[in-house]
């Protein structure tokens, strides 16, 4: 209903009070949550574990209702994939044994064992490329330790350690920059995280790089960091824009290894 009488001047003090209230809530909330960070994550961890169990069970129930024909086709495709991957793994195991022997010669034996950790939460639950794992200072985890997939690819570093949980920032986190080496030609590059398991690299126009090339860590053990997906080059540019993706599907990670 439109007002037909003269309105009283709106009280600016009421609006200013509300703004101060909101800013006050923000400041107090940030301080309280910073102090209670550990207990909050510890309290929520069982809920994350329960959610992982329930979503796994629900997936199996959904599969139960899929038609038999669809399941049979999936089964045949997966069996064929397994056969080809088994052959590939056998070849890779041979190279892995050689690599381990060479590293032991270079660094000496007993360089530390990896600690297995379950992933409590991962993207897209987290809006950042950060995963929470179920090991912490109680299991001798420290800030800065490297985190790998079981297959060997390097995915991130531990950035925060609590008693029984730790937060791992993935190299693909937005704004994160990581030194790396392009496998083809051993060119040093800087991997810039774009979020969602994606990277961007800028190389000179003359640098040879094609889709499928591996980008490795610069240290002695040369772990896989990313795989080139696309190379963009405009005729007027002096740099190539290389888009790469993480070797891990960060939306379905379940287990990782942590090493010093």
């Amino acid at each position, binding site marked *: 209903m439109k007002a037909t009488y003269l309105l009283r001047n709106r009280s600016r003090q009421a609006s200013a009070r509300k703004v101060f209230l909101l800013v006050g809530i923000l400041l107090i909330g*940030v*301080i309280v949550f*910073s102090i209670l960070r550990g207990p909050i*994550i510890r309290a929520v961890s069982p809920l994350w574990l329960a959610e992982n169990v329930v979503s796994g069970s629900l997936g199996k129930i959904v599969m139960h209702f899929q038609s038999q024909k669809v399941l049979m086709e999936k089964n045949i495709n997966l069996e064929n994939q397994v056969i080809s991957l088994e052959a590939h793994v056998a070849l890779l195991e041979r190279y892995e044994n050689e690599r381990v022997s060479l590293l032991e010669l270079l660094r000496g034996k007993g360089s530390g064992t990896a600690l297995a950790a379950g992933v409590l939460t991962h993207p897209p639950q987290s809006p950042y490329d950060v995963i929470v794992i179920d090991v912490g200072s109680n299991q001798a985890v420290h800030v800065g330790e490297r985190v790998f997939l079981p297959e060997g690819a390097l995915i991130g570093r531990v950035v*925060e350690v609590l008693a029984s949980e730790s937060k791992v*920032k993935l190299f693909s986190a937005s704004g994160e920059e990581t030194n790396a080496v392009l496998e083809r030609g051993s060119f040093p590059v800087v991997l810039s995280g774009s979020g969602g398991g994606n990277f961007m690299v800028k190389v000179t126009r003359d640098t040879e790089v094609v889709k499928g090339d591996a980008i490795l860590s610069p240290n002695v053990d040369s772990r896989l960091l990313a795989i080139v997906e696309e190379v963009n080059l405009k005729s007027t540019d002096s740099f190539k824009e290389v888009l790469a993706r993480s070797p891990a599907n960060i939306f379905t990670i379940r287990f990782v290894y942590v090493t010093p």
Partner: protein
Amino acid sequence: MTRRVISYGALFLLIIVAPYWLYLGALFVAVLIFPLYWEAIIFAILINTLYSANSGILAALTAPLLLVTLGMLILLLPIKSYLRTNA
């Protein structure tokens, strides 16, 4: 009041189990629907505490999610007041 309380439980559950685009969307819808939904700041701080890698008070105060939520709440104050007066 009951709906507001129900929104607390629903948002908390979504933050724990749902993808980020779902709980952030729900949070901003709650900010639009409810008058002066200051609880959105608490939920934004909770999301930051659980999922962000940046620890520390200063990092939390400059977190984009918190600033956007606060900005949205402050921006909606005069808009909602205008809508109420001229409806």
